């Protein structure tokens, strides 16, 4: 199944994927749209670039537009899609953490019907979702209602590096969500640690303690832990 094809392209080039055929969603009607009516609805084939530049998203969900806008390069953003980035479940991707913080739900469709899957239930592990084999991700729904959100992307090496730590934070109607991405197999959200009146520093330290981060070329587990505490605190300070 090919949406934008960037992830599939990498897998094919690395010889990790050698299917006998591809099914492209490019010309399937009714998957590429971006509309808002209270909540934001993004068709699965909407590109990152469309979300980044959309006046609708920038107006109503500015942090989401910004998050899609810090992914990789304009080339990747022209090709990669909203549905693809969720279905790939690459732990280092930026959008999933922000979508989770915003309380988004993915819509999965099959011959058996449609169901809504909150992002936190969608991404299960490295490159693994809870989608059934016959399900297609067709839409992402992001709640409207007044909210404030920020996304911080911490790179430890070059500007083009995959993030070492990503933090998404959102306040909506007295609720606070903090989600840390790029540090573990799935976006890290601990509702019990998200006291809306909590001290940013305390929440940061609590998140750092709660997560067992990965080690890779962008940073060791111990280093990521240090940065999680700092970046969560900074996200909350920025959020206000």
């Amino acid at each position, binding site marked *: 199944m090919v949406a934008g094809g960037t992830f599939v392209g*990498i897998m094919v080039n690395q010889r990790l994927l050698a299917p006998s055929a*591809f099914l492209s969603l490019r010309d399937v009607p009714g998957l590429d749209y971006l509309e808002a009516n209270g909540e934001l609805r993004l068709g699965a084939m909407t590109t990152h670039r469309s979300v980044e530049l959309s006046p609708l998203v920038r107006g109503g969900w500015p942090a989401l537009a910004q998050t899609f806008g810090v992914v990789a390069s304009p080339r990747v953003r*022209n090709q990669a899609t909203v549905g693809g980035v969720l279905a790939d479940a690459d732990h280092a991707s930026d959008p999933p953490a922000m979508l989770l913080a915003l309380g988004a739900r993915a819509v999965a469709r099959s011959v058996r019907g449609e169901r809504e899957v909150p992002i936190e239930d969608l991404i299960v592990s490295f490159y693994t979702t809870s989608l059934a084999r016959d399900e297609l991700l067709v839409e992402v729904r992001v709640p409207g209602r007044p909210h404030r959100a920020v996304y911080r992307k911490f790179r430890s090496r070059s*500007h083009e590096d995959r993030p070492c730590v990503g933090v998404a934070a959102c306040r909506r109607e007295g609720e606070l969500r903090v989600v840390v991405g790029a540090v573990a197999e799935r976006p890290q959200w601990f509702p019990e640690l998200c006291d809306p009146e909590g001290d940013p520093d305390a929440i940061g330290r609590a998140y750092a303690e709660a997560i067992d981060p990965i080690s890779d070329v962008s940073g060791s587990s111990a280093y990521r832990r240090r940065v999680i505490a700092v970046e969560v605190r900074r996200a909350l300070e920025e959020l206000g």
Partner: protein
Amino acid sequence: MKINFTVNGRPAVVETRPDQMLVDVLNGLGCASVRETCGIGVCGTCTVLLDGEPVSGCLLLAPLAHGRAVTTVEGLGGEDPVQIAFAEAHAFQCGYCTPGMVLASKRLLEENAHPGEEEIRLALAGNLCRCGSYVKIVEAVQRAAERKEDPWTS
């Protein structure tokens, strides 16, 4: 499978394997400026414009270009203001990354006629230049932007 698309304004009909990437097909059609060197879409030497938007030729399955218009630097004719600005600013050393840089810069200026230095750096961050010509590349883009503004030369 057979795909048709246009390359630099000319129709192309190509027999391709489903898993062949666009860069491969374009090389076969004589567009040698489109180069693959990283295979993971990070270096930008395979940049082409697909219906005017930059994409990585090494990550686009060729069939996904069916019915689309592809532009490579060969299609700019050497007369494009961005190419001229790059040549005047001497914004290259070995030149391997230059076709991708030119296409990315061209698109940037279409979207943003007056990019600041920081905006140019961010927009071109996905096109790697190991020779380190970035300072002059930024100057070239600024020069091209000014040129476009100047009624005497645009």
